[in-house]
């Protein structure tokens, strides 16, 4: 089942998929180019049935000066979780919003915006969700936002 998904994605997007593999039973990881993530997302939803969005996470790779954005989508029929991921540069963190593809990503993307400062183009409402209204400074989940360390005895 997982191999079928891998083949289908590979056949449809031969040039845009950077890396694709089956991590274990029920987990497929698809790494795509930044500007094609919308199309691959649409393909996953419409053609392969990954219709249930599970999470949108950002990961800050500060050494490589990159952010990774990961969309986890679950297929209720196939019982597979697909991780659709792409890398964007840290100094220009802009990505096309996938709210049109998965409507449930609305709040997930909004949270990723406030926690990482990743702008989702086309998102209807990018405003602070969880942080205090008067929040200033760098977004908290970036690696250069440092929490106090436990005092050494």
């Amino acid at each position, binding site marked *: 089942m997982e191999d079928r998904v891998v083949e289908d994605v590979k056949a449809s997007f031969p040039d845009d998929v950077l890396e694709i593999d089956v991590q274990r039973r029920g987990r497929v990881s698809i790494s795509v180019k930044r500007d094609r993530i919308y199309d691959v997302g649409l393909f996953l939803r419409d053609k392969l049935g990954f219709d249930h969005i599970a999470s949108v996470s950002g990961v800050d790779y500060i050494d490589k000066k990159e952010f990774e954005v990961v969309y986890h989508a679950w297929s209720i029929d196939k019982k597979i979780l697909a991780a659709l991921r792409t890398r964007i540069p840290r100094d220009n963190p802009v990505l096309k919003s996938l709210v049109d593809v998965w409507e449930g990503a609305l709040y997930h993307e909004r949270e990723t915006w406030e926690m990482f400062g990743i702008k989702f183009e086309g998102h209807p409402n990018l405003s602070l969700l969880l*942080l*205090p*209204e008067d929040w200033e400074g760098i977004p908290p989940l970036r690696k250069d*936002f440092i*929490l*106090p*360390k*436990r005092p050494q005895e």
Partner: protein
Amino acid sequence: MLSKVRERLMNIKFLRRILNWGRAWSLWSVHLETGCCGPEDMGRACARFDTERFGTLPFPTLRECDLLFITGLVTKKMAKRVRMIYDQMPDPKYVIAIGECAATGGFYWDSYSVVQGVDRVIPVDVYVPGCPPRPEAWIQGIKMLQEKIKKEGIDEK
């Protein structure tokens, strides 16, 4: 004129005692939950532990309440509202801080959005430690507050 009469009456120890006794046994608490001690608030108010025995009845509108339970952590966003709610409550008003987080920030000592102790925002009468404290500890907190109220305005030396 009235206030003067009131003040004079209150100076009579016997009347003061009656007033304090009345206050101590009718502590109505505001329904405000700020952290994860919330379900224990339900636990202490319902059938098994039943703090209504001690006159502590959870009540929806804060304008008729005189006790504020801070149930657990208070975030920076919530702190403003806690202050607002405290200011809106009629005098006399009392605060019981439940849990480690309400007392010192506890678990969230390194969090960027938690106020390190609710006493930075509002005055606190009784602290109840625990994460979360058992309903028995809440009851002890209420009893301690009652003892405090009973001594109010009476110089006992």
